[in-house]
């Protein structure tokens, strides 16, 4: 199997989708000729022509708004928002329109769009290139929300998202584009070419939306994570020697609750990790569900390790980022409770 970075895997997913289905169109800021600031769409305009892959004006509202109209027509737009931090101008179109069109028209009109966006921190991007806004979408019924953590999943989930009949918010942890990152910023990063999940089938395959994956089996405590935090959690488990079971949620909405409940009922302990700010982050929903469904199995409070409730700072990035030390402490706390 070919080795792919996450960028190559995403590009391959789009390429294959465009090849198989003439209705798939791709656009966004700098997405056409140049192929995207992270190069996820490089070469696609050349291959499929500029009416299927093109640059847009800088209007996230316009990008998503026209995508919704195209989807109503019958196309399957897969659009890019250059950074997740810039999705808010399109928020109304996503929340009030994309998410509701099927329901309010009783299925006469539907909205099979994918809105891709790089998210998360760890690149010294400051407050406007580091955000993780997933919880602002998981509260919106009618949307699906996906966060892949490796090239293989990124490809399979993205193809599944493009083929899905409903709108999907697809958050790509940019710190993982070139290799898994465990938060040890002082160490060199392993490239995907030396990681098993960098092995990606060159052809068409899907990873189903709504299914989590146990990334590390363990018996002492369940860690719920997604995106970059999967690797941070792995590092923390290894460094503390705690036998953690690490679940990579992959899809946040709809959520694979069965997988979570099964694990927590087994371990009796649960720690949730995400980069987004704490208050009303997706970890809140996870903690609420875990305590509801595993109440009689829990031996310790469900812990949350997250970004602090401040804007994402530039210089203090490594004090902000929930790294292996903070996750490790939470594991220890859960075990000692």
């Amino acid at each position, binding site marked *: 199997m070919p080795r792919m970075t996450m960028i190559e895997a995403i590009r391959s997913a789009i390429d294959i989708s465009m090849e198989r289905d003439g209705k798939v169109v791709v656009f966004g800021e700098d997405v056409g000729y140049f192929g995207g600031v992270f190069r996820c769409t490089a070469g696609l305009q050349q291959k499929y022509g500029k*009416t299927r892959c093109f640059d847009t004006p800088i209007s996230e509202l316009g990008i998503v708004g026209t995508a919704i109209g195209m989807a109503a027509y019958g196309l399957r737009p897969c659009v890019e928002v250059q950074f997740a931090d810039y999705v808010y101008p399109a928020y109304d179109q996503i929340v009030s329109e994309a998410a509701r069109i099927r329901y309010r028209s009783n299925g006469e009109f539907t909205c099979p769009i994918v809105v891709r966006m790089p998210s998360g921190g760890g690149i010294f991007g400051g407050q406007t290139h580091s955000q993780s806004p997933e919880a602002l979408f998981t509260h919106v019924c009618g949307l699906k929300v996906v966060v892949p953590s490796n090239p293989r999943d990124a490809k399979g989930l993205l193809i599944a998202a493009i083929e899905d009949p409903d709108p999907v918010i697809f958050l790509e942890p940019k710190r993982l584009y070139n290799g898994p990152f465990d938060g040890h910023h002082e160490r060199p990063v392993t490239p995907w070419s030396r990681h098993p999940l960098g092995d990606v089938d060159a052809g068409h395959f899907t990873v189903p939306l709504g299914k989590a994956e146990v990334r590390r089996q363990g018996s002492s405590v369940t860690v719920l994570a997604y995106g970059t935090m999967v690797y941070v959690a792995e590092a923390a488990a290894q460094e503390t020697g705690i036998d953690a079971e690490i679940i990579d949620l992959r899809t946040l909405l709809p959520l694979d609750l069965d997988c979570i409940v099964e694990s927590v009922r087994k371990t009796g302990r649960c720690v949730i990790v995400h980069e987004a700010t704490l208050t009303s982050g997706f970890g809140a929903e996870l903690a609420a569900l875990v305590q509801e469904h595993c109440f009689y199995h829990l031996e310790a409070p469900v812990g949350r390790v997250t970004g602090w409730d401040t804007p994402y700072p530039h210089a203090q990035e490594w004090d902000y980022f929930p790294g292996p030390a903070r996750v490790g402490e939470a594991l220890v706390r859960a075990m000692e409770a």
Partner: protein
Amino acid sequence: MMDDFPPLSLHVPEPEVRPGGTPDFSNVPIPKAGSVPRPPVDVDPRDIRDLAFSIIRVLNREGEAVGPWSGLLSDEALLEGLRHMMTLRAFDARMLMAQRQGKTSFYMQHMGEEAVSCAFRKALEPGDMNFPTYRQAGLLIAGGYPMVDMMNQIFSNEADPLKGRQLPIMYSSKEHGFFSISGNLGTQFVQAVGWAMASAISNDTRIAAGWIGDGSTAESDFHAALVFASTYRAPVVLNIVNNQWAISTFQGIARGGAGTFAARGLGFGIPALRVDGNDYLAVYAVARWAAERARRNLGPTLVEYVTYRVGAHSTSDDPSAYRPKDESEAWPLGDPVIRLKNHLVRRGAWSEERHRQAEAEVMDSVIVAQKEAEKHGTLHSGGKPSVRDMFEGVYAEMPPHLRRQRHQAGV
């Protein structure tokens, strides 16, 4: 240097008259019918900038159709148009009453604006798609959508095609080229552009029409629509219905220093036309011109329909609090139904008597439809959409958490 300048002050536009005052539209320049030229559809937008500041009119005071925009419709087509407008008016009257009787929670009428959507619809072809606001039910009526289905939606009854999920009058009909109405102003304007782009991408021949109110042109979606339509030359007709009011706010607040709403198109190189929105013939002529531009791949057209909202904004509104009660009578462009009727009479194709007769017939047909609809229930009595319907259709396939919730709800 600063000392040279007196203090600044904020300019806040005001309508000419408020309740208690005498309505005055003498400041609204109304060009003579027939006086605005009709350029070829492939005209360079730069050569027709003045059309954004005039008003294309066909019917003159005497009820004659005059000038270069006239001569497109047969007696038969005009009689059909008259019937559509009369039907919409009768429909409004009955539904307003139904709302007062508690048969529905809410209604919005079209009084005075009937020509805009009724005539526009006739310039479209099957397969074209409108992205309407809540004040274009004429698109459905003139497009042959069954009134009883509209009423079923209004009554949120067991036959409601939208299963009770939507606010009354927020219709949707793909088959009739009528995109699901959004309660959020403006959003659909840019979607229309996207739909049109999709048609062009697909090398189709179908075109789209976007609709927006004068007040709502201030929304962001309006700008995005113009930007994308201009850049990609989308085959779309972008319609602004300027009915002078946005709830209690007069059009001067949204329009600001521009003379007109059509003028917004000038900054985008989009041909912009203003048309007498109370003149069925003028609306049809301009709509057809714009639709032809779109279909010839010449790109978007921005059209401002100059009309007047005679009724309240909605059943939740009472306009006497913010404008003179008799303002609508002073409105210089008259009533669209009466103007078309007079024209047909003048043409010898109609008479006052046939008109009265038609009024009765139209009202009968509305009442028949209403009776039929009420058999399926009204908001608080009779057949209802089911509670299960509330949980369906959020996604194509119901995810586990919604199944759990439906179970909790006991349905």
